[in-house]
């Protein structure tokens, strides 16, 4: 066993951390909360130039050919810096779906553009039922000549407003088996009949209600097999879930460091509060939580990278990290006292995003049930 990062991974970590400290200051993070687009095209372009968009795509699609574990290292840094924008939507949720299920033509069309930073995608999966299983998919796609016509409402769609394409998960057949009869389409976001309404969210991130009103999409834009699209979702959702875990690990690490630094500097009763055992014990618990988050996530990401079965590991990671990150933030706030509650302070940026990540791709309760199913219950 080896719990250390490789030399290349250490370099990727250091390089991305240094880059983001300069290019993604908290002032940008705050600005983007109020910005309509919610991301900086300039930062996006620079990230693409560094090869981050195509990090795990094969070289033949202008990618870097790195592993999912390498991607995890990068996403941890994105989480640490709270990088705003459609990175996970484009690269992980949609890019990896296309890589997994796309035809050669689709891969050649989409992946190099993603890798160059020229294309933004958004996954339109969840609906007002807000479930993560196939039964939740009711948006209909009906064949008409060479096209399909999509109608219905998607909800909690991240980054839909800036997407060039929406990867829309539709129902094309009613069946007793809810996983049967699902088809995925890459829908041009400019198609007539699509309307996006922003949602006001706890993390001030960019999520939307997307209404499809008789939206026509050519058959060639189908991703994967007709009626068997759920297989693609099953393939990509564990990766998306781990990406959320990695994001949370990065956030948790930063919250720990901010808090420990504050405890060393903040003086009360004539000495740094970090010298009080009440504070030390909280910090020790935070450090233990963060290390637990890190290794349960990286172990699952390593298995994913190696192509080993990892459904149980992914659910265990999401169940743990979701709650441990929140606990870490709560303790961080407590140690920061009143100042951390103020909007000008960075703590609240992490606390609000922790809750959003907790919910995304299934909260701890959801994943505990998946764990129960997989440990023989």
């Amino acid at each position: 066993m080896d719990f250390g990062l490789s030399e290349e991974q250490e370099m990727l970590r250091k390089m991305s951390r240094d880059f983001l400290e300069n290019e993604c200051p908290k002032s940008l993070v705050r600005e983007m909360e109020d910005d309509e687009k919610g991301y900086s095209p300039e930062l996006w372009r620079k990230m693409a130039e560094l090869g981050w968009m195509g990090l795990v795509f094969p070289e033949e699609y202008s990618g870097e050919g790195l592993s999912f574990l390498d991607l995890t290292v990068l996403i941890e840094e994105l989480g640490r810096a709270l990088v705003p924008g459609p990175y996970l939507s484009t690269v992980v949720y949609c890019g990896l779906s296309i890589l997994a299920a796309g035809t050669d033509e689709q891969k050649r069309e989409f992946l190099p553009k993603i890798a160059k930073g020229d294309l933004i995608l958004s996954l339109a999966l969840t609906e007002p039922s807000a479930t993560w299983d196939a039964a939740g998919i009711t948006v209909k796609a009906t064949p008409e000549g060479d096209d399909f016509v999509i109608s219905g409402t998607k909800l909690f769609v991240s980054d839909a407003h800036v997407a060039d394409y929406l990867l829309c998960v539709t129902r094309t057949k009613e069946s007793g088996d809810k996983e049967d009869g699902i088809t995925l389409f890459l829908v041009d976001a400019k198609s007539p009949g699509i309307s996006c309404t922003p949602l006001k969210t706890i993390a001030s991130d960019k999520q939307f209600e997307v209404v499809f009103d008789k939206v026509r999409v050519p058959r060639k834009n189908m991703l994967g097999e007709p009626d068997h699209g759920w297989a693609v979702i099953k393939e990509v959702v564990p990766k998306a879930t781990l990406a959320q875990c990695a994001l949370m690990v990065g956030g948790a690490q930063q919250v720990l460091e901010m808090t420990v630094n504050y405890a060393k500097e903040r003086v009360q009763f004539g000495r740094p509060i970090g010298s009080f055992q009440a504070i030390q014990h909280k910090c020790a618990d935070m450090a233990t939580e963060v290390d637990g988050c890190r290794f349960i996530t990286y172990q699952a990401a390593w298995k994913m990278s190696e192509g080993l079965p990892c459904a149980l590991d992914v659910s265990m990671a999401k169940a743990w990290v979701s709650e441990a990150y929140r606990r870490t933030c709560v303790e961080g706030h407590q140690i920061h006292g009143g100042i951390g509650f103020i909007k000008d302070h960075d703590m609240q940026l992490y606390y609000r995003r922790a809750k959003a990540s907790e919910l995304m791709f299934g909260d701890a309760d959801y994943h505990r049930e998946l764990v129960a199913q997989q440990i023989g219950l």
Partner: protein
Amino acid sequence: MDFRFTEEQDRFRQEVKDFLAKQLPSDWLHGGAPEEETDEWWEFTQRFLRAMAEKGWLSFTWPKEYGGQERPLWEDAILGEELAYWRAPAMDYWYRWKMISALLLNFGNDEQRKKHLPGIARGEVYWAQGFSEPEAGSDLGATKVRAVEKDDCWVVSGQKNWTTGAHRSHWCFAPVMTDPDAPKRSRRLSMLLIDMKTPGITVNRMESMEGTAHVCETFFDDVRVPKENLVGERGRGWLAAMALVNIERSGTGFASLPQRVLEELIEFVKETECNGVPLAKDPLIRYKLAEMAVEIQVCRMLAYRTAWVQATGQDVTSVGAMIKLFGSEMMQRISNTGLHILGLHGQLEPGSRWARLGGSIERDYLWNVAMTIAGGTSEIQRIIISTIGLGLPRM
């Protein structure tokens, strides 16, 4: 990163499993084990330890010069994991073995190593740990047991507490006060090896709340210890003690015994019906056991990380404190949850006709109270993590 064991390590684990299957009665976990601390149990434990010794497993990580095989530390971690999983006898003794052999190998002189290591390797000589005292628990530096130089001896007087297994031990290793006037508190103690047959030693067994009596207090009344039994430099006993507690804390068993409990509980809830429905279908039970599985996975990662830190020669102080803290507190949560899943039956002691899972969870529930105290309390672990690990200022 690589979270895989090597094929060689997998083979070793299988060898340990095969050994345990052969050495332990088939119903070992559910009624086949002798009651702890009875003569029958001790006979069995000694046989078991000698069988371990025949495998070479009590000394296989040592240098060849002292009869070891210089095996990688990972094998020791795997052995510890399997012993805990199977609730093998003598875990307590095994830990003290690791401590005394580390003491001799890292701090002892050649003569001491040659004298003591062979008996340890053969599984024949048992050691007690004399660290705590009535007024020196978490504060080891407050050690009061005094050793005064007289002729060719140290004359030792005072009381050591929590000298677990002292009633069966041949020897004891203990930090004692040799230099009360040294300006630095950490330079006042020295580590002594004390023959338990020396006149003036009295061992008193104390029954602990789970019903065994292997926790002891040991009294020293002008006990003459030959000068050559001083380990390492005079005045450096505190340093040696700190190195040893790192070993004590850095166990892999913290995850594997709970894993065993989880597996037993899963079988139990599948087989047990409540109002005609298996308990395994109850959402609350599913929630509790899934949470247990997740916590154990976190604990396993922290344990393996500690083993990796040890195996790669990095400082284990903070990560060892972390696994000890997380593991011991988790064990308490798990035995509490497990006891409730067994319901009213959960309160029954081992040996009771109606006990479930051999009454092991009732025993765990009581014993685990000691887990967050022995080997350094949770509070001490948190201070180590925050000061040594995170660099927070000391009090």
